[in-house]
């Protein structure tokens, strides 16, 4: 048999060849449950049910547009021509009469729109006092011991004074649905909180370790220090030494997912390398895989990003950002549609839903906070 194989330098050594020929007779048990998702991904690749959502520029500057189906445009154009032609003929026969209002009127029932989320959070100080950070101006918010808490450009930062080990106090920053927030911790670590998330942290890091606790979704850019930085989330601990990573630990998501962008982190006792993702399913163990990190951190750059996402995955994210409740009617939660692409988070809900409608999702918005998904998707 002619066999084409080389090592990395283009050389086919005897040892390499022997190893290969030997391994061609190898067979090993494979875990079907582990390999099924790969098969499904391959088969869904060219199914065409995967809707391209993207509009505008991708985060990498690549423009991906929602393609227009021209066959439909012609169908619409024909309908418009027929209606216009019919109206014209009719007006000829009737002479100049007022066209009935119902023909002229656009369907402009003032539909309620929902504005996208924006900056804002609630800061709970050690003494239990709460400060709403939507409306505060720049300046010093509070002094706690030696630490000054100040607000500038919608970012809270902590400047540690002379640190006395005795006086460590904890603050909690939390965002409701429809709000995100950035802050800088006392060690210079930068933190982004997505909607419906919280972070509890000391106002000064005086111990042997820097420990914070979070819920929801948080992106970290850790300031490198000899002291390790520990993140506690849903019963797991992420340890790192100077790096950038994202943790998605929403309680309504199937798994707590840690995505490493740069550097190195340890999730419980598994070490991740850049571009890897650890999914921790409570009671189900840990799964590490390579991933497209831009999907996980798209929100930090003000974008939604989906890769082969189910309708429900997509809507959970919209629910948190637009502060709406999603109701599935008539089995619409069984939709087999998948979505891929990126969209800015600054669109209003109606603008975003209009893009979704082009992908055949049918919906109704009620009372400005209830999104009903209709069957037939």
């Amino acid at each position, binding site marked *: *048999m002619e*066999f084409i194989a080389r090592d990395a330098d283009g050389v086919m050594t005897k040892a390499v060849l022997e190893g290969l020929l030997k391994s061609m007779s190898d067979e090993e048990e494979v875990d079907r449950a582990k*390999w099924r998702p790969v098969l499904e991904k*391959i088969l869904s690749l*060219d199914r*065409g049910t*995967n809707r391209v959502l*993207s509009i505008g520029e991708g985060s990498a500057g690549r423009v991906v547009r929602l393609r227009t189906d021209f066959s439909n445009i012609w169908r619409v154009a024909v309908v418009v021509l027929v209606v216009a032609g019919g109206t014209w003929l009719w007006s000829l026969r009737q002479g100049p009469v007022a066209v009935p209002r119902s023909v002229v009127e656009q369907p402009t029932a003032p539909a309620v729109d929902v504005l996208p989320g924006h900056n804002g959070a609630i800061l709970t100080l050690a003494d239990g006092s709460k400060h709403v950070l939507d409306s505060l101006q720049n300046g010093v918010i509070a002094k706690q011991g030696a630490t000054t808490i100040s607000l500038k450009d919608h970012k809270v930062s902590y400047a540690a004074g002379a640190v006395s080990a005795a006086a460590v106090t904890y603050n909690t920053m939390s965002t409701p649905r429809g709000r995100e927030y950035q802050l800088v911790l006392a060690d210079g670590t930068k933190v982004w909180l997505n909607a419906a998330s919280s972070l509890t942290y000391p106002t000064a890091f005086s111990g042997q370790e820097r420990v914070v606790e979070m819920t929801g979704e948080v992106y970290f850019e850790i300031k490198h220090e000899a002291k390790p930085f520990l993140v506690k989330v849903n019963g797991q601990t992420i340890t790192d030494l100077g790096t950038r990573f994202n943790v998605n630990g929403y309680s309504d998501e199937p798994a707590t997912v840690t995505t490493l962008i740069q550097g190195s982190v340890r999730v419980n006792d598994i070490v991740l390398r850049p571009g890897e993702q650890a999914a921790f399913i409570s009671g189900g163990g840990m799964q590490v*895989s390579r991933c497209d990190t831009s999907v996980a951190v798209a929100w930090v750059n003000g974008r939604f990003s989906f890769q082969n996402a189910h309708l429900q995955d997509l809507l959970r994210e919209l629910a948190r950002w637009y502060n709406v409740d999603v109701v599935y009617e008539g089995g619409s939660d069984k939709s087999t549609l998948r979505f891929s692409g990126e969209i800015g988070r600054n669109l209003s809900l109606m603008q975003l839903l209009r893009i979704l409608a082009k992908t055949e999702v049918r919906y109704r918005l009620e009372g400005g906070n209830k999104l009903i998904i209709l069957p037939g998707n």
Partner: protein
Amino acid sequence: MADNPLYEDKELFNRIAGGDEGAFGDLYYRYLPRLVPFIREITKSELSTEELIQDVFVRVWLHRDRLTGIVSPRAWLYKIASGVAFNYLHRKAIGERVMAEVARRSDHSTPEIMPELTMRELQTIVNEAIIAMPDRRRQVYELSRREGLSIEQIAGRLGLSPNTVRNTLGHALAFIRERLENSGYILPALILSWML
């Protein structure tokens, strides 16, 4: 005859050529136990093995219209697997040389090496290709992929001959492959030869 593995492979290939997902799943699970250790032997990496297995079967699936011409399915699959795995080693070697060079010039920071094309990018290109197909071709293609109809069923529904449907599906796949190749998704092992 049914116990003859060559016969079974060829039978699977013929069914996959008609767009049969079940047959593709059978082939996948039949060859995983052999291709997983084979690719791991070449790459010495557990993590990239999963990625490369995916790559091998994506290539098989996207060339399904041409599978009936393969004389020896087993040899052909090993050939694709080795092509994909050695291509990976080659890219990795280049990546490491670049990394070493970057590390020599600046003393910190880890540049991210971009993988070839992510599944998400493939997905976007394939979706756009489907949307850009001429109406008739897309209609036939979607009956095959979305509704899972066989070539004969599509022919019956549209009043076409099975051969016309088969050719149309072949054109649709060739169209998708062309879009992928224009975006830099190379199909090296497949270009070499079809017959073994």
